[in-house]
């Protein structure tokens, strides 16, 4: 019997969890992992080249044509994102608490103190698969925003 199963059964015997919950936990433990860690190159697309840049492209056009098109094209190296994330990991706890408070005031329920540097690294790694396309059409303007990695 492995250690996790023993812990679950102990929690059940102590009445900390119900039999249903114990069953669900054991089933979840036995199920094949839905995702694998980033250190597993086979699962993270070994043949897929690692993207080097995060691109943000904005195209805005007015139908009247008076203003002309506006284009923004930003290319940020992924290395810079990773370094920035490591810098964010150095933010002291009191500053994080203040940031949390400000976020909650704006209705964003994120607890920054719970985000660890390794989570942030993982977040940047998962940006590889990110593509965001936003198309907005008003009466006068057409805006297209594209965020992706390349």
């Amino acid at each position, binding site marked *: 019997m492995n250690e996790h199963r023993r812990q679950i059964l102990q929690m059940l015997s102590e009445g900390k969890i119900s039999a249903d919950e114990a069953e669900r936990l054991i089933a979840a433990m036995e199920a094949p992992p839905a995702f694998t860690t980033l250190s597993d190159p086979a699962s993270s697309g070994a043949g897929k080249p690692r993207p*080097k*840049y995060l691109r943000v492209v904005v195209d805005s056009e007015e139908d009247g044509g008076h*203003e*002309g*098109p*506006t*284009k*923004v*094209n*930003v*290319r*940020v*190296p992924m*290395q*810079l994102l*990773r*370094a*920035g994330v*490591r*810098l964010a990991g*150095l933010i*002291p*706890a009191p500053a994080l608490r203040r940031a949390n408070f400000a976020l909650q005031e704006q209705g964003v329920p994120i607890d920054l103190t719970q985000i660890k540097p390794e989570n942030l690294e993982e977040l940047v790694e998962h940006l590889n698969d990110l593509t965001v396309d936003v198309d907005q059409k008003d009466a006068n303007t057409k805006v297209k925003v594209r965020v992706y990695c390349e």
Partner: protein
Amino acid sequence: MIPFVAVVSLRDHESRTFRLWVPLFLIWLLLLPLAVFLSPFMFIACLACRVNPLRGVAVIWQILNALADTNVEVEHRSAGLSFHIL
């Protein structure tokens, strides 16, 4: 390696392009004495905030290294501005 040159390009409505090469290495050289002068204060600030000063320096160095190849372009009508760190 930290970037040594940045290129700022401006294009006006008549499609005239002005390109300015910014020697970043001169800026780094100018900032070096300032960084040395400020390092004791930064060290104290890091200790006060309970941040490992060596880790802080390492992260800032990583950011400087990673700046290379950053590119920002903005175009409006026929005018445009681009900023590229080499």
